[in-house]
């Protein structure tokens, strides 16, 4: 490839190394704090201890919040996947005048400030007398992640071969049968991908949930957010470490899934590179 002079290259590597440290530093700091014995904000920590981990097992509110988060995110993602896939089918397979406007409308929550949506939800759901619970949050979050599903599933649908469907129809399959035996299996990957992106996204939502939820239905980010505003003891570092481990596990799972599907790795530049160096 490109010959560039040694000095510039070295400088680039040093710079990238520094950026990498910047990216990792907060996470490392949290890990260190979680095993430190003094107050959280003091560096260097005075000694090492696992007492905060023991303390966590007494803080049942975090476990409950984690459960709430799982319920809310799963619910919202499922709702968005179902409504989004059906809408994408209508827009891509049976296009009609004005479908572009509809697509724009369905995609617009992406640019909407989340804090605005949070307040709009609060007012709406208060009027409907369902504010405070997880059901309201599921409805609200589903709107927020619908654009991910619509974009990814919509583009996958547009890339499908209509010949497959036509062949099935010629052989006498009804529309439902065509959907379940031909279309859905081919959408598997984009459903999985948009589902996992949407899941990660909703799991971390603060703005929409902060105003909407009652104390017994707090999700994990809300619980952490409010805990952080009040106290700053290392218990929150322990919770964060658990969350980081969770994120790492999720990343590994996604990576494994991606590896099993050859075409997709080019999205991350991995496969394309391999092919180039091989040739």
């Amino acid at each position, binding site marked *: *490839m*490109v*010959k560039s*002079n040694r000095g*510039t290259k070295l400088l*680039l590597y040093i710079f*990238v190394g520094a950026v*990498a440290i910047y*990216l990792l*530093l*907060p*996470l490392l*700091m*949290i890990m260190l*704090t979680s095993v430190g014995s003094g107050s959280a*904000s003091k*560096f*260097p920590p005075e000694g090492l201890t696992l007492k905060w981990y023991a303390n966590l097992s007494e803080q049942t509110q975090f476990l409950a919040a984690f459960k709430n988060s799982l319920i809310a995110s799963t619910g919202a993602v499922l709702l968005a996947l179902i409504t989004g896939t*059906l*809408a994408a089918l*209508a*827009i891509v397979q*049976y296009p009609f005048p004005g479908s572009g406007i509809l697509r724009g*409308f369905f995609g617009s929550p992406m*640019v909407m*400030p989340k*804090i*605005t*949506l949070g*307040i*709009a*939800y609060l*007012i709406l759901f208060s009027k409907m007398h369902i504010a405070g619970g997880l059901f309201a949050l599921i*409805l*609200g979050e*589903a*709107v927020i992640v*619908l654009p991910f599903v619509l974009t990814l599933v919509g583009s996958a649908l547009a890339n499908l071969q209509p010949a497959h469907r036509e062949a099935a129809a010629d052989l006498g399959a009804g*529309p439902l049968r065509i959907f379940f035996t031909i279309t859905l299996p081919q959408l598997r990957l984009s459903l999985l991908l948009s589902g996992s992106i949407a899941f*990660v996204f909703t*799991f*971390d939502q*603060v*703005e929409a949930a*902060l*105003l909407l939820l009652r104390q017994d239905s707090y999700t*994990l980010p809300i619980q952490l*957010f409010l805990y*952080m505003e009040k106290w700053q003891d290392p218990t*929150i*570092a322990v919770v*964060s470490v658990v*969350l980081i481990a969770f*994120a*790492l596990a*999720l*990343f590994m799972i996604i990576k494994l899934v991606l590896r099993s599907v050859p075409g997709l790795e080019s999205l991350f*530049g*991995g496969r394309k*590179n391999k092919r180039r160096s091989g040739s």
Partner: protein
Amino acid sequence: MNRIAERIVNLYSFGNRTWVTRLLLLLPALALMGIVYLGGLLIFGRYSFDMYENGKLIRGWDWGAYRAFLSDPYYWKLIGTTFRIAFKVTLWSLMLAYPLAYCIAGLKKPGMKQLLLLLTFLPLLVSAVVRSYGWQLLLSKQGFMNWLFIRLGLTEEGFSMIYNETGVVVALVHIFLPFMVFPILNVLSQSDASLKAAAQDLGAGSWRTFLTITLPLSARGIASGVQIVFTLCLTAFTTPQLIGGGRVMTLPVFIYQRTLDTNWPMAAVASLFLLVSSIVVSLLVNKGAEMLMFRRSRKGGQAYG
């Protein structure tokens, strides 16, 4: 004959059913978006015309909140702070993200590449609250950064980096950096390597190749990165609230506080302003990038002619 007739019947009934099918398919999404999203926003918008006096909401049709928002210098200061922070964060993330993306795109060893990609995208999977907490630990008065600065002899008492704009910017750059790296990396890894080789065959040095080939080709990626990061910054709430500790007032933080004391008209007007400005910024950045690329390609054309 029979089969042809059947086909015609099939075609006909299929055509008849499309409207029903389409409507049935769209119905769930339309219901969700219509009631929850549009309904919520309309009710919220309606509140922007109410009045708020002495802690009480009064129903009505009034431009009071709009007038107050646009005429009071306090709100302009707020808007200024929000835009200044967004501008600083965008600039810093571009400066950090470009070399990182360039390096990742140019790496030939898959292992090294995977590692850098993991480092770049791992923070994205960790909650913004958690990352803000990490920065709070790092930037606090007795935290690691000040410990380091004192050791290095840069300061004796330590800088105050938390509960002010510096802290908010440092933490926001960390949170939005991946959103800048991804579009740039995407463009860089798709661009044609033979163009670079051609430039070098023609005798251009590595810097010249970079400035005349690589950088202009990545304008599209830079534009979408800038667009994403800037609008995300304008509407960021968690980090300014936690790292700013109530002392850095940005529009989202302000909106949140107005909601807590049920001043919904003001919250609605400020939200509307936020929405309009992020759309305007997106359009401007798009236009700017198009103009830049257009001028470049014309220049290229003249050089050939």
